Every structure is written in structure tokens, then in C-alpha cells.
């Protein structure tokens, strides 16, 4: 075999290998798991205040971050795909922190105080701050 055909063969093999590693990565990279992350500890009211005061600044601080949120439960419901959702109260009756659980936390009573850890996806004015992919950290007795 000529020297240059060998080189081309080796290069092609390397390219194929890199290609398959990239494809393998796309299909096997695990989803982010908030349970193993240390969350920013704050209350539901503090999170609402931050976004209400300055959305851009709050996005820089909290967007995509793990947040460990404590607050009073307004209500618990189930979303259209069967996941449990809890709304935390704020001092604005029209505004809540909307939290979706990735594992069902069991029944959480309105007005109980709980701690929830999830990923903040942002702010929807006049409605809510969204924190999702979360887990229950604790219920205040």
C-alpha cells in the first residue's frame, strides 16, 4: 500500500471515530439533576421581589441556577403531563412562584411551609416566576 493511501485511511478512521463520539454524546448526555446541586437559598417572596425590581438583573443572578426556595404553599395541582405543580404565595395576590416537580412530592397542603429545590427558568410579568425540574427538600412541621 502506498504511503498516502495509508495516511488517508488513518485520517478517515479518526474522523469517523470523532463523528461517532459526537453523535454518542448527543444521545447519551444525562439531563441535569438538581438533587446533587447546592441551591441558592431564598424565600419565594425574595425571588419575586428580585424579578419585580429588575428583571434583567434578576435573570443574570438566577436564570438557569439551582434555587432552594422556602415559602407558603398557595395550591398544588397536576400539569397536563401528570407532573405535580406547587404555586408559592407572594404578597401580590396575582403573582406566584410556579414550581414543577420532577418527582412527585406527595400531598402538600395549602398554607403549609415547604422547601423546594429546582432550576429557575425566568419571569413572566403579571403572572409568575417559573422554577422547574425540582424536588421537595422539606416540609415545616
Amino acid at each position, binding site marked *: 500500500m502506498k504511503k498516502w493511501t495509508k495516511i488517508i485511511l488513518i485520517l478517515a478512521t479518526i474522523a469517523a471515530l470523532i463523528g461517532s463520539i459526537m453523535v454518542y454524546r448527543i444521545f447519551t448526555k444525562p439531563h441535569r439533576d438538581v438533587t446533587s446541586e447546592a441551591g441558592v437559598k431564598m424565600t419565594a417572596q425574595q425571588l419575586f421581589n428580585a424579578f419585580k425590581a429588575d428583571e434583567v438583573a434578576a435573570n443574570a443572578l438566577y436564570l*438557569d441556577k439551582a434555587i432552594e426556595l422556602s415559602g407558603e404553599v398557595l395550591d398544588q395541582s397536576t400539569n397536563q*403531563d401528570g407532573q405535580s405543580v406547587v404555586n408559592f404565595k407572594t404578597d401580590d395576590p396575582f403573582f406566584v412562584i410556579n414550581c414543577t416537580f420532577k418527582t412527585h412530592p406527595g400531598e402538600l397542603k395549602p398554607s403549609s411551609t415547604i422547601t423546594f429545590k429546582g432550576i429557575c427558568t425566568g419571569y413572566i410579568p403579571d403572572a409568575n416566576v417559573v422554577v422547574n425540574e425540582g424536588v421537595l427538600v422539606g416540609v415545616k412541621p
Partner: protein
Amino acid sequence: MKMKKIFGLVVVVLLASSSVNAQKIYGTRNGKISFTAQKDEDVTAVNNEVVSRLSDKGEISFSLLLKGFKFAYAEMQTHFNNDYLQSNQFPRADFKGNITNIKTVDFTKNGNYKVAVKGNLTLHGVTKPITVNGIISVKAGKLTANAQFIIVMKDFNIDAATVTNQVNAEINCVY
């Protein structure tokens, strides 16, 4: 005494006018919008935190957070947010519009009503007028909005040519 009478009158007038203009607003914080790339069904994502309001006068709005789209594959989710949608810079997408044939919808009667919605979609920092046909279902006083439409990437300055030029979007919101 006179002041009290005037005050009473003002209250009565306000109440009367508000009942004339009264509109019922249906809302959800956990509506669902999903999309699939037109040429690659593996590229699909769903958002379950759509805030939507719909009034019986025909006003309709949807707001969602781009970071709330969950992909089947985590790597795609990262590319979507970082490379294509720049979700840190443009965290939210909003639609505000009107149902142009709202008179054909009877909110008190069960049924599936075909509606045409016209409004403005803001995505990736670009606002464009769009028209979408959908269905509003009324069942025992409960509303559901369904629609399917195409979003062309270049209309919103999204450069995702290596993946797709357009996506099929689907709205499914229970109010």
C-alpha cells in the same frame, strides 16, 4: 350627607358600567406548547409552564420561557439555549392577539369551535405578525385551546440551519 350620596352614586355607576363591560377571562400557568424540527423528529421539546389568558371577548395571549423547553436529549437542550435561541439574552417568547371570529364561539355550550387568531409573536427579540387557525373546545365549562403552526427560523433571525429551517409548533392549553 351630600358627599355620601355622590359617592354612592359613583359606586352604583361604576358597578353598572363594569357589569356592562364584564368579560370572563380564562387563564392557566401550566399550559403546554411543544415543537418538532421538520426534518428530524428526534429534535423535539415540550414546555409545560405556558402562561395563557383567553377572554370571552376574543383577546388571547401566550407567554413562555425558552429555558423551560425540555428536550428528549440534554445535549440538544444546551445547543438550543446557547447556540440557537440565545435564551440568556432573550429568555421569553410572547404572543398577543385576537380571535377574529370570537362571535362563533359559544362559551356556554359544549363543542369544538374553529377559530382564527391574529396577533404578534415576539421570539428571539423579533416581533412578527402571525395568523394561526385553531380549535377552542368547550366541555362542561372547561376550555381547551389547540393549534398547530409552522415557525420559520429566519423570520425570527434564528440561525439553526445545521438542524432545521422550520419547526412544527403545537399548542395544547387547558384553562
